[in-house]
């Protein structure tokens, strides 16, 4: 047990400040605004439900990374929940396979209002490498309304963080 405590102690705090777009000040301001929005409208806690609607699982790896010690997305009051009923935001990766179409719609319906949908990754944004076919509906917006698109194949955790920060700059 001592070894474990030693390891934890020596590893220390690794969580990074958000290094973002060229003008750092603007980002800090946006970050502060997001935090303010989350504090005020969501009582300091924004709940995300991630839905894989057909991804190759690359996007999921990077979404997972948001929770590692370097990005530590929870410090902004953002956390991932197990049920759409607890969620404010659906983070959807695509393309939406036709076999997931009904499940995605039901997940959307199960999410209480007000809700936001973020399409993640090139496939979720425009169909990506898979496009539209007998098996794929393509972009998430073909199936449910989308509020924000975060492109990338896959988007890096930083891209995801920036996307989240930008969602409430012009809240609907």
């Amino acid at each position: 047990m001592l070894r474990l405590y030693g390891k934890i102690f020596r590893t220390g705090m690794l969580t990074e400040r958000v290094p973002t777009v060229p003008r750092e000040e603007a980002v800090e301001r946006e970050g502060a605004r997001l935090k303010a929005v989350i504090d005020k409208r969501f009582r300091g806690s924004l709940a995300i439900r991630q839905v894989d609607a057909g991804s190759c699982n690359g996007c999921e790896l990077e979404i997972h990374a948001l929770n590692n010690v370097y990005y530590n997305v929870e410090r902004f009051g953002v956390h991932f929940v197990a049920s759409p009923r607890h969620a404010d935001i659906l983070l959807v990766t695509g393309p939406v396979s036709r076999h997931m179409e009904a499940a995605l719609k039901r997940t959307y319906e199960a999410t209480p209002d007000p809700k936001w949908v973020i399409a993640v990754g090139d496939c979720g944004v425009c169909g990506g490498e898979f496009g539209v076919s007998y098996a794929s509906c393509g972009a998430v917006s073909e199936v449910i309304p989308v509020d924000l698109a975060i492109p990338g194949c896959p988007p890096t955790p930083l891209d995801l963080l920036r996307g989240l920060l930008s969602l409430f700059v012009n809240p609907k």
Partner: protein
Amino acid sequence: MENTQPPAETVDPNQMFRVALVSADIEALSVLPSPLAPADLIEVKKNDWGRLGQLASAQNWRWAGAWAEDLGTEFSMCACLQKQGRYLILRTDLPADNPALPSHAPYYWTADRMERHIRDLFGIRFTDHPDPKRWTRHKAWGETAYPLRKDFPAQGHPAPETPPDNDYPFLKAQGASVYEIPVGPVHAGIIEPGHFRFQAVGETVLHLEERLGYVHKGIEKIAEGRDPVGLLKLAGRVSGDTTVGHAWAACMAMERAAGVEIPLRAAYIRGILAERERVINHVWDLGALCNDVGFAAGYYQFGRLRELWLRENRALFGHRLLMDKLVPGGVAADIPPEAAGRMRDSTVSLRRELDELLPILDANSSLEDRFLTTGVLSCELASALGALGFVGRASGQTFDARRDAPYSPYDRLKVRVPVETQGDVASRFWVRYKELRAALRLIEQMLAELPSGKLAAEWQTPAEDAEGFAAVEGWRGEILCYVRFGAEGRISRYWPRDPSIINWPALEKLVMGNIVPDFPVCNKSVNGSYSGHDL
């Protein structure tokens, strides 16, 4: 227990099989030279197909996969067998109208889902298949529509809205206090979709039935007509966590079809990329296994180590997951001396971190409590299922393509393959820990020996109908790939076989008798790819 050499065998298994064919009066034609070299190809009559399966099973061949092809006037059907590092492919022709042949499923469990996939997508009937249920087909196309036939357009004829797949006939259990738990397709974590149907009594799992196919994206269909570069983009996204593995398999199959020999430097760089992918995935899953039993410190430590390597990938190769770094004929990323030095350093430092974590993990009684004797897959069952990768190797299955059917650069390296026989979650955890260390050693060796030379050979457009077959060892296990070219160097058939389709049934077996709350850790210890399975 560590095997460094494949078992000594004096008789060529392919020759044994041909002798058996003659004794059984089965008419067979060895195609020489084999267009699928190094795999051998035997052409047979369709009515003998079932007997061939029976014969192969009696000779302990591992059934590794099957694929079909629509050749216009007829269908062709292939099954791939493997024994002692040799691959043997059986091929037969089927008439275009009402194609049917005997099944291999009565002799090989592994054949079950792959044959159902072929039936759903090609409309080839397997006459004595024990399970009539559909598999990959849900409700996106009709019962008599077959997407992989050439006359089916890639766009299909989709309904405005695809109905849910809610009438799949799951096996039911009956009796006092038996109940059913449906899970998914949308799961409670950041994870791919699939459906699990549990029959349970109290906390104990009586039976688990998987229902996959939710992320079927039509990969085999939309590969048709692509050029080699386009195919690689797609192959790199068969399963995002195995982007190097699948791209390598597709490259190798295409290069064999085109007769392109890649430069040795390119082979080494592919090897280094593939081992880095193995390291990153193993590190990640070791952490995730800790997380699934509530050991958060382990999860965060391994997550930290993974992130460091992802960042290094980004700095050295421009992509955190190493997507699109392979090109037909070679690689698109070089390793200059500074990069090699940096990788050597990170290898040393990761090993030091692992040395430090090992006693912490080993002495942790809560890990031991949850890992030991949980989710046991016996060696017999693993062999019957043909289990691959760390799932197989935790249950006594020693096969590793890098050592047993070596390809460049592994034919020049000493590949250590750790094997255990306990078959529980703990075994799979420790096999992966050992594989991780073996991968670090391979990376160091490849960096030390990295030959100079070109990064890619010039691509040559292969003749129409040229075909190629490849087997590479991805981090989950053996990946197979078959490619056939059409006119003008365009792909006419692409068949990737992720190890997941072989290993998914193992989860159904090993979870039986365990408690429902141990399902997540059992699932994680197998870690099948949904995308790689569903295609």
